[in-house]
């Protein structure tokens, strides 16, 4: 195992970086999309429940199947990987964003309206900051989940640690095959823990003091 790691250190480091970078970029994109969608639907009860149903169903789609299906429109490489990871990343964030935005004490929103704040400034200056801890919770769940999903992206020749897992599995029993799989799996877990730590730190920095628990 040590030999395996030592001889391929640069390759592993590069793949880890690629993996993390794919996940983080997809998370950023997913957060933006999820908040935008939530902003559109949260004021309407029917739309919110449609969005919640869609996220629930979306989460049941096997990631592996979706990756395979997306090869047709996107071809091999980064684009299908990006699409799949972002799609799955959106779901928990959207769900939490809706919960967070609809859970805000209505008297606070009413007093904001009473002060003459416009709809958009109420959203940006009152509702979003108040829902942020809940949204961030969704981002953390999402980050854990898509770390694993990103590994599947290797199936369509996407970047990241998935390559070690797939190449190891395809020649299981052969030299260094187990080491390869373990490197991929452990790498993903370590990255997930690392990212979670970063997100907790981000939460501390971005949660207003008045609503910290």
């Amino acid at each position, binding site marked *: 195992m040590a030999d395996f790691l030592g001889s391929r250190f640069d390759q592993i480091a590069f793949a880890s970086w690629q993996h993390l970078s794919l996940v983080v970029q997809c998370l950023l994109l997913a957060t933006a999309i999820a908040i935008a969608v939530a902003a559109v639907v949260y004021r309407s009860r029917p739309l919110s429940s449609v969005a919640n149903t869609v996220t629930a169903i979306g989460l049941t789609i096997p990631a592996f199947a979706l990756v395979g299906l997306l090869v047709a429109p996107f071809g091999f490489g980064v684009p299908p990987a990006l699409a799949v990871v972002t799609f799955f990343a959106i779901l928990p964030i959207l769900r939490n964003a809706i919960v967070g935005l609809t859970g805000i004490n209505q*008297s606070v929103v009413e007093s904001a309206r009473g002060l003459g704040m416009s709809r958009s400034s109420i959203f940006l200056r009152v509702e979003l900051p108040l829902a942020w801890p809940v949204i961030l919770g969704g981002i953390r769940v999402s980050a854990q989940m898509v770390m694993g999903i990103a590994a599947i992206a290797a199936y369509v020749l996407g970047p990241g640690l998935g390559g070690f897992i797939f190449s190891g599995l395809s020649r299981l029993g052969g030299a260094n095959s187990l080491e390869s799989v373990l490197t991929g799996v452990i790498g993903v877990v370590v990255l997930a823990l690392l990212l979670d730590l970063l997100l907790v730190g981000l939460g501390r920095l971005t949660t207003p003091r008045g609503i910290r628990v």
Partner: protein
Amino acid sequence: MSESAVSRPSTGTISGKSIVLDNVTKQYPGQSSPAVDGVTLEIPAGKIVMLVGPSGCGKTTTLKMINRLIEPTKGRIVLGDEDVTSIGGDELRRRIGYVIQAGGLFPHMTVAANIAIVPKMLGWDKGRIAARVDELLELVSLDPAQYRDRFPKELSGGQQQRVGVARALAADPPVLLMDEPFGAVDPITRQRLQDELLSIQEEVQKTIVIVTHDFDEAVKLGDWIVVFTEGARIVQYDTPERILAEPANAFVENFIGSGAGLKQLTLRRVGEVTLADAVTVHAGEAAASAIEKMERADHNHVVVLDDRERPVQWLSRRQLARLDTLTDVPEDKLPVVGQGATLNDALDTMLVSSAGAALVTGRRDVFLGVITVETVMDAITAARASAAASIGGPVGTNSDAIPTVAPDAPTSAGSSMSQAHDD
């Protein structure tokens, strides 16, 4: 209880604007009867008008239509002399302070940031905003240095409510709307906040409209009270004195609840009634000379004062007969009320002391005179009579309603206001 609104001296200049609701209706889709049915309501500048009524009567809807948080289906709203029915709702609301139960503060912002919201939207510079925040915190009796940087969760309910009032007053709006502002605080805090609101109002003289379901609060705070029933139909729009003395119908009577007479007592102060004379002597005088004075005045009691004119004893003829010289040892349970006390307090003191009368003191506890049960009765009779005689004032009707004032009352517009100043 605090002083009644009508007897409040006007120290500041009126900065409020009048509000007129002209035939305003709110009909929610899918409901057979309108929530607010053709209300025409005139709210005079610089006064406190209380909207009261049972829950679901449309009083809150009426209030929220003033700043168009709820858009009226029909009708006009005039602020000062400007028709604001069709200007931008957000723009209108920046000119009208709004306070809700428990303040409605933004939990993620500091006290200062909460207060600064409207000034910031209006584009004030930082220095001006900071100065205004401190000024407002002083106004609502919170030490700026101590509270400026706190978050709402670090404040008590009463303090949050005060910050809510400060925030609403931030850009010096002419009108303040309050929706059950003191509903969420304990009774003692509520009383304090009510007293403070009255003293703030003395200073700022805004036009204040307050929704409440607590009739006692309405009597205490209101210059005028609107009593609503279902569909925001105005049953009576009058001064607290007149509503207590002459409820328009059984509905208002029920709403006032028991003890209308006692509630009236809270509207008048001891200093406002004519006190009875008393024979006064000073400590150190001989009892015999006190008896002589008492007989000359044909009284049965003398009040003994100390060297600073403060009452120490209240002696009957029989007690005097047993004394040689008068001392300044204070008598136990001497029934004393200050001239700022309400007649209610005075009556209470009399009942407790079982004397049927109480000594009234003024500044520095100097003796002023005696108030008796008869004085209180006379004051009530006079108040009822003057309340009945005074009629007129702002308009408040529904489009298809019969006039809401008592039919037997003479009409002389403004006399209720002049009555307000002669006490």
